[in-house]
Each structure stands twice: as structure tokens, then as C-alpha cells.
């Protein structure tokens, strides 16, 4: 019998998760409540069954996620029997940083990039496992499976270690840390096919439903709570929408869709070829935006 594509991807991801857990002093898994996180958590549970995964979940929160994401997060962490650490950058909280008044770039840097660094430093995590994929964006095509970060969590594209076979070098010096990406070789389609094959629970926002929306600069925003300010002339309108990617709700663009199940999503993806992160407003901050954010320590 020849293994299928999904079986091989699954086996590879489990192998990476086990390597990370075996060689790290204080591993942690980043969890965002997105579909990649859902798949990663599912794989981690498979890798270490019957025991729970030997690391906590870390959610770097911005206080601006969709309410359904918070609910899913708390539910799955409990079901997996894993400790859930939620970190909100106290500085961003004290200064009330939000995407409307401060812009997406500052919002993302303070809540997410700085928040992540604070959380990793506070808990002295040395290996952070995350669900980033190489197909998401050009710069990530070159990312390693185990990626070394210097003091201050900076990524140096020139200082990457060659990765041969399945032998990974997790050695690091004082103050350095490692990011591990078990889904490196997965594509967005692979993630959805795996969700379907394994019955992985993903956030309901990925499925189309009538939601209160407003269209702004060509992007459809969903008003998840009453914090979304409406500009003069704007009003909320019910639209049948879903999300391909989830982040802070004021920064996540929805797409008009009728896809209410995974097979329908897969069918829809066969028809559209917009890049997945198209709906991410933060990626449009500049052409080299992702490269810069990564160097600074963003996932």
C-alpha cells in the first residue's frame, strides 16, 4: 500500500511534534483558534495519545477576536486536557490600542508581535510550535521547519540552518529560541481536506451564514460586537458571508459565499484562486511587509 498525500503530511507533522517535545526544555503550542490551529491541535493529540500533549497552549490575544473564536478556544483546550495560557500585552491593554484609532500596523505590532515575545519570555518557552505554512506567502517558502530566533526573537534569513532528511538541529545558545512549524509542507487545500477526512472541529466562521456586515474599501467587515464604529453613510447589512482566514474581526475581510460545509468550501476553492491571505488587511501594509514582520518576531 502506498501512503496517501494526507497520510504522509500527517506522519511528517506528528514526527516534527514529537521531535519538538523530545528536545525542548519548555515547549509551547501557539493557538489562534484558526483552522491551522485546529489541525495542529488535532495532530498533537494524535502524536501523544493516550496522554495529553506534553505542552500548554498559548493564545496571544488582542481582545479583538471574534467571540466564536474565544468560545472554541476554551472548549477545545478543555477537551484536550491541556493548560491554556492567554496573554494580552498589558501595555496595549493599558493604552487601549485598537485597529480603528491606531491603525492595523501598530495594532498588530503591539498586541501580536510584542505580545508574543512577552509571553514567550515570561514563561521562558524555548520552543514554540505554530501552524504556519510555506504556501501562505512568498517569504515563508524558504522558512525552515525548525527556525532559530536570536535574542529578542529576531529572524535572520541569512542565518538559517540547512535541514537534511528528518534530522533537525534544535541546539541553541543562551537567550535563543526556536519556532517549529509542523504544517510547513501543507497547503490550504490540504488543511481543508484533512479537516474533512478527520472531522476536525473548526470555527463556525469558516462556514457561510447571514451576518451583519459593512463594506469598507472593498473589504467586507463583520460587526462581531458593538465596538465597530460606523462612518457617516455606512449601515450594517445582512450578507451571506464566510471567512477564509481569521484574525481580529476589524481586520478580517469576509467573502460572500454559500459554502456551509467542508465539501462546499473545497468546491468553492476549486473555483477561486485568490491567495488565502488576501483577506488579511495587515499583509497589505507594504510589499515586504511579511519579511519585515518576521524579522521582528511575528510568526
Amino acid at each position: 500500500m502506498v501512503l496517501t498525500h494526507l497520510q504522509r503530511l500527517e506522519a511528517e507533522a506528528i514526527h516534527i511534534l514529537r521531535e519538538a517535545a523530545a528536545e525542548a526544555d519548555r515547549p509551547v503550542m501557539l493557538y489562534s483558534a484558526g483552522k491551522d490551529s485546529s489541525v495542529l491541535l488535532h495532530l498533537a493529540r494524535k502524536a501523544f495519545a493516550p496522554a495529553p500533549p506534553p505542552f500548554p497552549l498559548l493564545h496571544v490575544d488582542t481582545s479583538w477576536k471574534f467571540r466564536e473564536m474565544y468560545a472554541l478556544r476554551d472548549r477545545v483546550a478543555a477537551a484536550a486536557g491541556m493548560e491554556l495560557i492567554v496573554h494580552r500585552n498589558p501595555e496595549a491593554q493599558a493604552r487601549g490600542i485598537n485597529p480603528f484609532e491606531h491603525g492595523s500596523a501598530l495594532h498588530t505590532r503591539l498586541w501580536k508581535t510584542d505580545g508574543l515575545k512577552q509571553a514567550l519570555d515570561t514563561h521562558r518557552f524555548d520552543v514554540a510550535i505554530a501552524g504556519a505554512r510555506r504556501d501562505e506567502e512568498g517569504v515563508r517558502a524558504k522558512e525552515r521547519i525548525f527556525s532559530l530566533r536570536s535574542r529578542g526573537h529576531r529572524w535572520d534569513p541569512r542565518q538559517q540552518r540547512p535541514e537534511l532528511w528528518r534530522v533537525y538541529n534544535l541546539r541553541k545558545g543562551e537567550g535563543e529560541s526556536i519556532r517549529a512549524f509542523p504544517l510547513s509542507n501543507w497547503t490550504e487545500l490540504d488543511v481543508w481536506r484533512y479537516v474533512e477526512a478527520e472531522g476536525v472541529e473548526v470555527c463556525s466562521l469558516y462556514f457561510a451564514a447571514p451576518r451583519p456586515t459593512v463594506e469598507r474599501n472593498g473589504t467586507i467587515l463583520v460587526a462581531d460586537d458593538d465596538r465597530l464604529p460606523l462612518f457617516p453613510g455606512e449601515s450594517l447589512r445582512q450578507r451571506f458571508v464566510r471567512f477564509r482566514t481569521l484574525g481580529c474581526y476589524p481586520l478580517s475581510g469576509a467573502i460572500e459565499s454559500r459554502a456551509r460545509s467542508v465539501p462546499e468550501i473545497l468546491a468553492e476553492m476549486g473555483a477561486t484562486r485568490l491567495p488565502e491571505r488576501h483577506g488579511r488587511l495587515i499583509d497589505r501594509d507594504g510589499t515586504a511587509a511579511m519579511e519585515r514582520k518576521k524579522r521582528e518576531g511575528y510568526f
Partner: protein
Amino acid sequence: MPAAARSSLRFITCGSVDDGKSTLLGRLLVETGSASQAELARCGGDLARLLDALEAEREQGITIDLAHRFFASPRRSFIVADAPGHEQYTRNLVTGASNAELALVLVDARHGILPQTRRHSFLCRLLGVRAFVLVVSKMDLVGWDQSAFDRIVADYREVVPEFTAIPVSGRSGDNVARPSDQMPWYRGPTVLDHLDAADPATAEADSAPFRLPVQSVTRGGVRGLCGLVASGAVRPGDSLRVMPAGTSARVARILLGDATLEQAEAGQSVSIELTEPVDCARGDVLVAAEGAQVADQFEGTIIWLSGEELTPGRQYELKLAGQSALVTILPPKHEIDVNTFDRLPAKTLRMNGIGVAHFWTDHPIVFAPYRDCRELGGFIVIDRISNETVGAGLIHFALRRSENLSPQPPRLSREARAALKGQRPRLVWFTGLSGAGKSTIANLVEAKLYARGCHSFLLDGENIRLGLSRDLGFTDADRAENIRRVGETAKLMLDAGLIVLAAFISPFRAERRMVRALVGEEAFVEVFVHAPLEEAARRDPKGLYAKARAGRLPNFTGIDSPYEPPEHPELVIDTLEISAEDAAEEIVRFLGL
């Protein structure tokens, strides 16, 4: 096609932008509908630009590196390691080839086989790729001429004995994803058809014995031995051996998550329960019958990946499957010229150098020859100071099987011999610049030990360089080898129960760490005899600094060769502060004598 039946193929592309590699990959993406509309719009119809982020990367000053591309046909998903054919070719290509099942080699129909074609093909074969596709590109530019194609195919047969050859035009798409009308003389498959159907027979074929390197052992009531099956297959009831111990055990259950499997095969990550509660931990390997050997001395191919050249004799860390060991690599038997495949004499390996060498590990490891099993025959070499991956290795064979060596009758122990002398064996290692006062102090220490009735011996340049290390010079490699010999000699003397004093400049931390590891932490006392360079040069008891500064003594420590002071010595003697006599007294006190 349902996900349950979708297969996959991982391949590497070899060739440069000029060979039409980017155009071909771009064409494959477009024809399979794997490129997004935004990407298509961005490249403005120029397929080469679709995937060739190289230009953009160069402009942004980003390193050109191995990139991973993804596309899918209706039947199969492809993961492409796209290795740029530039300066870092060996490092990138070797990395990409290590996980590739097939190599797609691009050759421009106008130019034929180039040195880089041979080089890339050689590296792929070296890393164990068996399936080759020769894609002769730009056929439109030679008027779809069959004789041009046939010539290149014949030439390539001298590089790789077996391969599939396909004439294409990436620009027009002929024979990429749809058959060409222009070349009726070609009746073979298109590139995509071939990639769809290819079934690369790798070394890890079905007939190979079962091998599973253990990554970890599950907790929570069930003792599951976790790992990815490197080769072969296993079923409940099968007899296995746990290496290196060689313990026999039987498979009770095979688990993946909550599911129980009837069989596990190559490529699957599983958890295996044995019927007997045998000792097993990370680094051990479960094998069927003759699936693995255990040894500590090897011959193999070393590929050097670091800007800092290989230092033969220095201890590096070796990582193979879940096993780690200290490895010492001897000077290469020869280096391989990747353009001519000639064997060249070599003393070391520089960045991108490939050589055959003997090496040994500090303890026996479980392995299989690389040609039989990539997972148990391929290892990486890590620098112990910088933590960088500096090399990769492919094991050919063991020089001696260590199972033939180990069962020696118990001999007199170090402790027994030391007890007879009424002392604790120690190695006092004096390091510092030439002229710092190492030998002076060591001689005083030895006189004091003698007065106290201790059995000791002093090793220094006088008695080592003139005899045991007479054949060595003062290059970094020779210095490392000299220290290794001193370390081994000191170890024998410790086993004899002696207190050993060693006074050597020993400028490199790595070598001092090697000796520390060799003789054991508890026996090693590192004494840093410190004098500032200017003071040592002023003293210059042998007139060496004067010579070195005049350029008549190359590689002199402190002048044109570095000295790395110890980070955590047991003792620091500041020779500006205390006399040699007081220093010797302090050392004797430290030894508790």
C-alpha cells in the same frame, strides 16, 4: 479525486533560470490551476516570474535559498524543492535532494549538458535519488529538432544510467501538461503525466527490513514506542529487536492516535506497544532481523556546509535519527571534484566540499549504510560552540563492528590502581599564551606533589612535540590533533592512577572541551594561566614573539592565530598578581593535597 486516494510526490528541480526551470514550474502551476489569479496578474504573463522570486529577493537583499513550491494535479499533490543553481548550490541542492524521491533535471536544447548538469545530477545520486527526468527545454528555439534532443539524451546517459527524457517548450507548454503537435517523433508522456505516474523505487522499498528510530515513549499507562517507520512494515505478533541492546521483543499493538492499526509501513508515524516490558528510550531503534548494526568507527562521505572549514580531530556533535554522539572526523582520504568526479588529495573540507573520511563516535550508535536506509545512514554534524549545522554525512560502512570489541574481561579499574597509590587521579590542564608561565608553574606543582608522595607526570611541548606529535605542525587542524593525542595519553595515565599535569597553549575551547569530555568532568581541572599579550611578549623567554612579529613564525598564538580564553576554568592564575610559587601552592591546595 477523494483525499483518501490522492497520492504525493516530492521532487527536486535542478538547473538554472536560464535553462527555463522557472518557466517550466510556472507552466505546471498554471496548467494545473495551482496559481492564484493575483499571482498570475502579478507576473504579467511571464511564467518565469511566477515562481522566480529570485529577482525580487535579490533586489530586497534577501538570501537566495532553497524554496518550497506546491502544486497539485487531479490525482496527485506535488512538493517541489526548488534549489537555485548559484554559489550555494551544493548546500541547497543537497538539502533539497535529501528528501526528494525524484529529480527533474532541466537542460537547454541549445546548450546541451553543462558542467552544472553533471554536478547537480551527481549530488542527487549521491543523496540517494534514483528516479531522474531529463527535461530538454526550449525545443521551440531549435526548431523542434529531434536530433538535438537525441544528442542530449545520449550525452546524459554518461551522467545517469537510467532516466526518462522529455522534450518540452515551457513557453508554449508543449509536452509540459499537454502533448505537443510540434514533435510527432516523440511518443512518450508529458512532464505532468510522468510526474503523475512516477513510482520512484527508493531504497526504502517494501522489501527493506522494518526499521523505526524511537523518538519518545508515551506516558499515561500505555508504554508506546513512538516514531516514524523508516523502512519496511510491521504487524502485531512480529518479532523485533531493540537496538543497540539487541533485546528481542514481540509487537503487541500498533497505535495511531486512538486507532489500532493492522500494519504500519514506511512513512507512517505510529506508536508501538511490545508484549515484553523491555528497556527502550529515545535514540533506540526497533528493527527486524538484520535491519541495523551497531558501531563506533566508520567510513563515509562528508559534505561540508559551513564557511568555517572542517577541523579534523576536533569533536563535533553528530545527530542521526534520534541519536546524538560526539564525533571526531579524520583528515579526508580524498575530496571529490563535483565537476570532474576526480578524487583530489585533501587535508580538510571547505564550504561545499565533499570528501570520503573515517570518523568515530564517542559511543556506539545504531546505523545502516546510507544506500540501504537514508534515515539510519544520514547524519548532520553540529559545531558545539556555535550550534550551527556545519556538515552532513552518509555512512558507507563500519570499520569494525563494536560488538566484536566490547566484551573484554574486566580489567583493573582506575579506582583500584589509584587506591594502591593512595591518591585521586586528576588531569590538571594549564592553558594560556606562550610565555604566560604554564610550564614554570606546572614544574613547581609537580615538585610539590612529589614532596607529598604523590605519583604524577608532566606532559608539555618538550616531551610531546619532540616525540608523539613530531609529525604535526601548527595549523588549526594540527593543533587540534596534537591536543587530542595529549588527551588520550593523559587518559591512559589517569587509568594508571596518576595525577597528570599538562601544560599546552591549547588555544581553542573546542579542543579543551574535547579533553574534558574524554577524561571525564570529575577528573579535569582547567587552570587558566593568564598574562596579557603584551606582558607575555615582553617576557618572551624563548624569543618566539620576536620571531612571530618578524613574520618568521606563522600561526603563532596571539599574533596571527587566535587564543580563546576559558569561559569556566576551575582556577584562574593572574600572573601579574601572584608569583609562580604562590600559584603552585594554590593549585596544590585546590587539589586537596
